[in-house]
């Protein structure tokens, strides 16, 4: 029992501490691909340290909604870090809290409070970012639910651990059309949820095109640090769910020994490197789509998952 509690803490710590590294490494890799030197891999840690030291400026029009939002959002990401398979393939003590759909709800709660905060200060850019993010979120949600249905078709559950086991025990599932289509759709959603390139440019923030950055423009100092840290954690979490549940379910420790959990950390980093490489290739090779074509992108994700479910209906898995 003590081991599993330690593992539980370790898992959240891994997400907390390695999330800036993952985003930083991606930014560096993208710069290298673009023939630039780019910031250090550790740059985001320095950024965090800087923001945490600074005091924050809050508009006198802002209410408690604005003040509380970064903390609620951060807590949401921490909660999700406790319930999904990041370093173990067996449920940890807190994993009973929710399944995939519950996890998605907690993530949307974080997005919701950040949107509220964006609206709360009545700054025009905040409202703009919030309205865009809500529009995208309302289109991404049905696709996400469909992806969970493909997971259900493969593993007969909506639990990420059971899905992990189902794929891990019979690797041929990896090439089954249903699983493949669900994986592809989930990858598209990972890009959407984290504002990667077909949706918005992660490195450039131009007022006219920004979505995610627009909502948090008003934050500064410690609150800004929390918000940014939270968004890196979200990226880290979704990428690890993508790799651990959908693509490569092996290399996770069981929940009984501490050693397995510790070994799983470097393996997780290797997996994330693969996922990050794919994202970097996409980021650097295709252009951002026009805003109103985001609906088509998400429609495509929805469609992939739908076809996946229909296929499972015919071939039975």
């Amino acid at each position, binding site marked *: 029992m003590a081991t599993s509690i330690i593992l539980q803490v370790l898992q959240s710590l891994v997400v907390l501490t390695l999330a800036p590294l993952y985003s930083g490494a991606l930014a560096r890799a993208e710069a290298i691909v673009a023939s630039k030197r780019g910031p250090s891999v550790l740059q985001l840690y320095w950024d965090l340290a800087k923001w945490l030291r600074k005091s924050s400026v809050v508009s006198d029009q802002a209410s408690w909604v604005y003040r509380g939002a970064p903390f609620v959002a951060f807590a949401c990401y921490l909660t999700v870090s406790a319930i999904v398979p990041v370093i173990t393939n067996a449920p940890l003590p807190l994993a009973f809290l929710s399944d995939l759909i519950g996890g998605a709800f907690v993530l949307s709660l974080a997005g919701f409070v950040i949107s509220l905060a964006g609206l709360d200060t009545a700054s025009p850019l905040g409202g703009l970012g919030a309205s865009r993010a809500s529009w995208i979120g309302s289109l991404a949600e049905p696709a996400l639910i469909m992806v969970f249905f493909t997971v259900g078709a493969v593993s007969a559950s909506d639990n990420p651990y059971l899905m992990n086991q189902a794929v891990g025990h019979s690797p041929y599932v990896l090439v089954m059309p249903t699983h493949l289509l669900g994986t592809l759709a989930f990858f598209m959603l990972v890009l959407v949820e984290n504002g990667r390139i077909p949706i918005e440019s992660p490195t450039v923030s131009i007022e006219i095109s920004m979505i995610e950055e627009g909502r948090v423009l008003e934050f500064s100092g410690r609150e800004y640090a929390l918000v940014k840290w939270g968004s890196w954690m979200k990226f880290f979490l979704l990428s690890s769910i993508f790799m651990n549940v959908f693509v490569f379910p092996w290399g996770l420790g069981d929940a009984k020994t501490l050693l397995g959990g510790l070994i799983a950390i470097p393996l997780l980093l290797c997996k994330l490197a693969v996922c990050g490489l794919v994202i970097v290739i996409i980021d650097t090779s295709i252009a951002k789509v026009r805003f109103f074509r985001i609906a*088509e992108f998400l*429609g*495509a994700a929805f*469609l992939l998952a739908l076809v996946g479910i*229909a*296929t499972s209906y*015919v*071939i*039975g*898995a």
Partner: protein
Amino acid sequence: MESLAATSITGISLDLLSVLMLLCAFACLGSKLFNRYVYYYGLQSVLLSAATAIVAYTYGRVELWVLAVLTLAIKGIGIPTMTRHLLIEKLELKRDVAVSTGLSTALIVGGVLTAFSYLVTTPALLPKGLVAAAVVPISTAIILLGALTMVVRRHTVAQLIGWLLLENGVFLGAITLVAAFPFIVEAGVFLDLVAAVLIMVVFVSGLGRRLAEASSGEMRGLRG
């Protein structure tokens, strides 16, 4: 489940290839650039040739090997290159603007058609002992998507691509359902295909030079 018995390597790879072919058809339906149409069609044909090779390997048939090679050479390389050089570059086609519905609508209709083809080819209706159960509904879906591409696009070259997609769907269904498809029929189909593309090339390039417009939407003006 009973139909899960078809999880041989052949079955899985055929299912997989056919799903990828379906995605190519969707990509074609969802893109707006003529270059992309041809690219996706070429990709789909290469996948089709791989599927043919797998069926040929499983049943050990020489004529299917020949078909696989022919598919790769003609559909995978020949027709895309020909269309690109003779039509797209010659007519300077880039962006397809002659569409009758928005892309989202087209994709949604495509999804509905796919669901429909899955519904009409329920597992109970399929012949017993089929290697890859998913191929039948998917080939039906590809046929319908090809037809939809022809309906949605108004430009003649885009309609040609739609028709070629449709033909790929027919071919995919044929090789998996009746592996003993007479070779002479297939060869004839190939010949037809090449002839049709050639005629199209001559016809459309003449049309384009004279009218600078090859959209069938223009023909509405002829209505009484």
